[in-house]
């Protein structure tokens, strides 16, 4: 007995092939078997989902989320995170290893894989720590962890700052063709800072972090990439100088990629206003010039991917004086509408936006996702490109509601999310 589903009358979008046309898509036993006009032809016996001309695209691949399991399940679990991801159109997400304990051991990588299977929601993959306990001193078992399913290696929100340790991590990772993901901030320069250095921080009397703390870490790392030839990914880039450095490195042929997160193109430092801790992030929100540079970096492809940078914190940890409040915001459920702002404003084409949300992160992490190709898993998102609405944090599936975007008017929403042909969001409509 085979399960056949026909998604009818969709606007089919596949950034990998440039496909953007009206048509149908047939799913058989969790795999895409036909795309376009042929799909309707061999759909006998299939259940039909009428798409009313809405956008049908590869499900999003979110390469940067924090799920808090194990260790801080009151903030987020894999279950609640999976529900939030599904509501956001994300079909694969990759968890950072900054749990308690940190994911630096084969058993913990296997734990994530097992929990993901048990939950049966979206695909949950995990990074492993690049150094034991995220302490930045000894490298982890990169070979064994890769074999166990770790997608790549990172110390999460801590930069691997010791140059010799990073050089060894790069060299060793190259042996296994593993990817190292860096949080780009020179910690000794950023120490004690809570927002981007500049007029706003000066007015508020808050210690600032110079934006140069980001680019100098990346420039140093790029030298080590040159020496070692390792694959290097820079997470959440937020300054024009960093993007310029990566653009130049790519032109030289270095194996470097990067992502950014919606707050870095949707907000600037003025969102902090009068001590709005919900706009406290790491890296911090930047100047308007840097925000524009992020948009330009997405447009010219220097920035490969958009990740949600989902960081669940209970509201109590935000309702504190600014310097004491936690940094980070939830993002799984706002990633699509915030990215679509760039499309509606004419900065990106729809296919460019989708490429950054699905195709490129899947390629960087070498995951079997991000395409509408026949024979690939039916991880799909159906969304209304134009429907206006407001972001409402009360409706979030995430256990934590820490978002600065509450009430923001947006255009576009997820209608349905499918993972291997199963509807994980939007089943009723």
């Amino acid at each position, binding site marked *: 007995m085979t399960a056949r589903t026909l998604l009818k009358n969709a606007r089919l979008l596949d950034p990998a092939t440039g496909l953007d046309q009206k048509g149908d898509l047939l799913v058989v036993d969790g795999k895409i078997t036909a795309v376009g006009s042929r799909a309707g032809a061999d759909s006998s016996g299939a259940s039909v989902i009428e798409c009313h001309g809405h956008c049908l695209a590869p499900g999003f691949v979110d390469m940067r989320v924090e799920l808090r399991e194990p260790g801080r399940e009151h903030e987020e679990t894999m279950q609640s995170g999976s529900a939030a991801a599904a509501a956001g159109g994300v079909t694969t997400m990759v968890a950072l290893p900054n749990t308690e304990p940190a994911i630096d051991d084969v058993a913990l990588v296997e734990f994530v894989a097992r929990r993901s299977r048990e939950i049966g929601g979206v695909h949950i993959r995990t990074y492993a720590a690049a150094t034991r306990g995220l302490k930045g001193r000894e490298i982890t078992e990169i070979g064994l962890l890769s074999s166990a399913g770790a997608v790549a290696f990172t110390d999460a929100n801590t930069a691997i700052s010791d140059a010799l340790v990073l050089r060894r991590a790069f060299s060793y990772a190259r042996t296994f063709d593993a990817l190292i993901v860096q949080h780009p901030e020179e910690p000794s320069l950023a120490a004690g800072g809570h927002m981007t250095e500049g007029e706003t*921080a000066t007015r*508020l009397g*808050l210690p600032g972090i110079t934006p140069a703390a980001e680019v100098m870490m990346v420039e140093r790392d790029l030298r080590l990439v040159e020496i070692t030839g390792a694959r290097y990914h820079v997470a959440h880039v937020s300054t024009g100088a960093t993007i310029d450095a990566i653009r130049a490195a790519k032109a030289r042929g270095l194996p470097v990629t990067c992502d950014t997160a919606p707050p870095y193109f949707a907000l600037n430092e003025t969102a902090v206003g*009068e001590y709005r801790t919900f706009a406290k992030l790491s890296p911090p929100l930047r100047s308007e010039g840097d925000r524009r540079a992020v948009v330009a970096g997405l447009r010219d492809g220097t920035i490969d991917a958009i990740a949600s940078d989902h960081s669940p914190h209970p509201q109590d940890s935000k*309702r*504190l*004086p*600014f310097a004491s409040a936690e940094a980070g915001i939830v993002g799984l459920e706002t990633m699509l509408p915030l990215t679509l702002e760039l499309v509606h404003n004419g900065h990106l084409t729809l296919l460019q936006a989708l490429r950054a949300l699905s195709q490129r992160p899947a390629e960087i992490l070498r995951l079997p996702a991000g395409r509408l190709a026949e024979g690939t898993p039916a991880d799909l998102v159906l969304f209304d490109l134009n429907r206006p609405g407001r972001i409402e944090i009360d409706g979030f599936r995430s256990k934590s509601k820490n978002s600065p975007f509450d009430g923001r008017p947006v255009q576009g929403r997820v209608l349905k999310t499918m993972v291997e042909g199963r509807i994980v969001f939007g089943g009723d409509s």
Partner: protein
Amino acid sequence: MTGTVDSRAFPHRHLLGIEGLSPEDITLLLDKSEGYVDQNRQADKKRSLLRGRTIMNVFFENSTRTRTSFEVAGKRLGGDVINMSVAGSSIKKGETLIDTAMTLNAMHPDVLVVRHHESGAVHLLAQKVNCAVVNAGDGSHEHPTQALLDALTIRRRKGGLQGLVVAICGDILHSRVARSNIHLLNTMGARVRVVAPRTLLPAQIERLGVEVFHDMGAGLKGVDIVMMLRLQTERMHGSFVPSIREYFHFFGLDARKLAAAKPDALIMHPGPMNRGVEIDSEVADDLDRSLIRHQVEMGVAVRMACLEVLTGELGNGPPAK
């Protein structure tokens, strides 16, 4: 004088900072303060304006001078003043600032006078209470009553603030006094300079409307007022100046450096002074030129005026600031 009715209203519920106050707001506070200066010099200093009102001094950071000044101000207006020293109380046991605010609010104070070591903490607390809040200094952000008392001191000696050239010297980076004074002096039409080594200046300070100098000789040239700031070593993580000796040599105020200022230039300091660090005793104690003791006297009068306008308008003004 205190007996006359002043129909001008203070349109703010709280006094959280100078930024956002209009010239009229500031003038109103200074005019009201003048009356209290006279009252405070009489034998009978007590009035009953605040009879039945409760003023709580809530200090999350140690202070003797400012807390005492507010206490005197509240008592001279006939209010009940309660001093809460929070250092060592429940806040140390993990209670959040908001919980503390809720607890205090339940006691129905009329005014909370709050000092906190973190910038923005007083704003946060003010959002959670029903009474007026006076910021008695939050982190490196603002200290509005200090700027008001400085303005009153200057106005009484110079007749006004418009057109004066004021140099604020020293640890601008960590100073809430500097930020409040920059806002106030700019609002009232004075010209503000800051003089400090680059390590003690915050980024883009010029965007607040000041001229920046790194040399005392150039920075003090032709100024009417020299405001010295204390080196706030308690807020410093690491070394901002190599030594006290070097700091005093280049940035400490002594007679030689003061010679660059106008001959009738006046010297101010918010206290407590570190003699031999940012100021030489010879100039600090110069009775003709040093206003340091006047500043303390004006502090009580200014705080009385602040308490008056905030309790008088309670419930009538708009909810902002």
